């Protein structure tokens, strides 16, 4: 990986300036909370740009570490702002939905004679409710992304957890002639981790794989213990793969390769957050036309920082 280019820096500074502008505007127009949020982001953005400048000439490895740290800080700040926005938007959404439903109710009570126009109005109301629900999915995802869920550490039988989730996906997969292949290494040690959070990640990845394949193909899920004793899970599909220019964005919030309206683009961002909180790592690899493969590596127990279970 090479250092940041001129355009990267330019974009970074431009973002900072734009965010400053937005902050000023928001504060003047009375929305202090969001304004302050934007101000924080702008500051962070400026800081990032400065660091990018200073980093020119540093060796690649150091640069990579720096980059990771920045990414984490940036995501945390973005998460907080996003959660604030999501909360603010949820209230008007609830009102829109309620008003649409109420309008429908009034229409029924008014006993207006059935005409094509009336049907049209009803259709339109239904669409409003549907789109509100879609928007609510997005805000729910945002809140989920920002929520810092402290992992609760218990003994986890990873193979069993994966078998359960695979069985759940298998039924729908079979209907589209997708085979779910399990290559689970027997005798894996129990790990100390958070089972519900891992279920969320595995289910999400399996579902993505199923959607990527569409029909006729296979999903292979495997587990093994690596040399360094960490447990490695891979989920590979035979879908159309992810083009190389997109793969580095695959874990970014709101990035999606799915049809508009079918995904919020938050699933993988949330999954990455979860895996990192468990002391693990998640990566994606793909060659166009040959499917995609996601690899998770998990420690036998999370390092310090995460509290341990009292039970044996």
């Amino acid at each position, binding site marked *: 990986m090479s250092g940041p280019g001129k355009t990267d820096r330019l974009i970074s500074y431009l973002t900072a300036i734009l965010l400053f502008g937005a902050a000023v505007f928001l504060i003047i127009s009375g929305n202090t909370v969001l304004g302050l949020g934007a101000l924080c982001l702008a500051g962070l953005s400026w800081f990032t740009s400065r660091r990018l400048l200073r980093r020119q000439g540093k060796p690649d490895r150091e640069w990579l570490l720096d980059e990771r740290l920045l990414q984490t800080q940036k995501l945390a700040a973005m998460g907080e702002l996003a959660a604030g926005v999501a909360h603010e938007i949820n209230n008007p959404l609830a009102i829109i939905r309620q008003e649409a439903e109420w309008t429908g109710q009034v229409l029924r009570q008014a006993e207006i004679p059935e005409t094509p126009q009336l049907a049209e109005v009803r259709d339109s109301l239904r669409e409003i409710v549907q789109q509100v629900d879609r928007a609510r999915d997005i805000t*729910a995802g945002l809140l*989920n992304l920002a929520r810092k869920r*402290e992992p*609760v*550490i*218990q003994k986890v039988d990873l193979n069993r957890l994966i078998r*359960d989730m695979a*069985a*759940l*996906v298998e*039924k*729908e997969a079979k209907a589209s002639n997708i085979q779910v292949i399990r290559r689970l290494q027997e005798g894996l040690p129990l790990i100390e981790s958070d*089972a*519900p959070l891992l*279920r*969320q990640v595995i*289910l*999400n990845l*399996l*579902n993505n794989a*199923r959607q990527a394949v569409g029909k006729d193909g296979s999903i292979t899920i495997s587990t093994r213990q690596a040399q360094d004793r960490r447990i490695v899970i891979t989920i590979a599909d035979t879908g159309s793969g992810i083009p190389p220019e997109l793969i580095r964005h695959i874990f970014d919030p709101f990035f999606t390769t799915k049809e508009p309206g079918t995904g919020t683009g938050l699933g993988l961002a*949330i999954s990455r957050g979860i895996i990192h909180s468990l002391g693990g790592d998640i990566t994606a690899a793909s060659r166009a036309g040959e499917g995609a493969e996601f690899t998770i590596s998990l420690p036998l127990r999370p390092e310090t920082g995460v*509290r341990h*279970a*009292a*039970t044996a």
Partner: protein
Amino acid sequence: MDKFRVLVVDDEEDFLETIVKRLRDRGLETHGVLSGEKALQFLEGQDTDVVVLDVRMPGMDGIETLKEIKKRKPGIEVIMLTGHASVESGIQGMQLGAFDYVMKPVPLDELLDKMRQAYERKVIQEEQL
């Protein structure tokens, strides 16, 4: 593992009766209700550790009920139980903080095992507070 308190929510009366009986037989303090609304009422009045919740119910469905339980009593662990495996609602359930999403029919021992883990999680969480 000590005794813990369980609420089973399912609209199928026959299923509910049997499972409540069997869980009591295993020494768990178990109650059963037939709907999500009744579950919320029950939880208002009685301390509960683990809820086993059917996904498909008339009226308030399992996902709605889960959302309400987690809003009102976030400490309670919920195991979703479903007759129709739906990946979509599985993802939703896990995102909303369910402990597990289990397909019916499930052997009682397996369910008990999951319930014990769910209870253990509740205890750990309470200790962390």
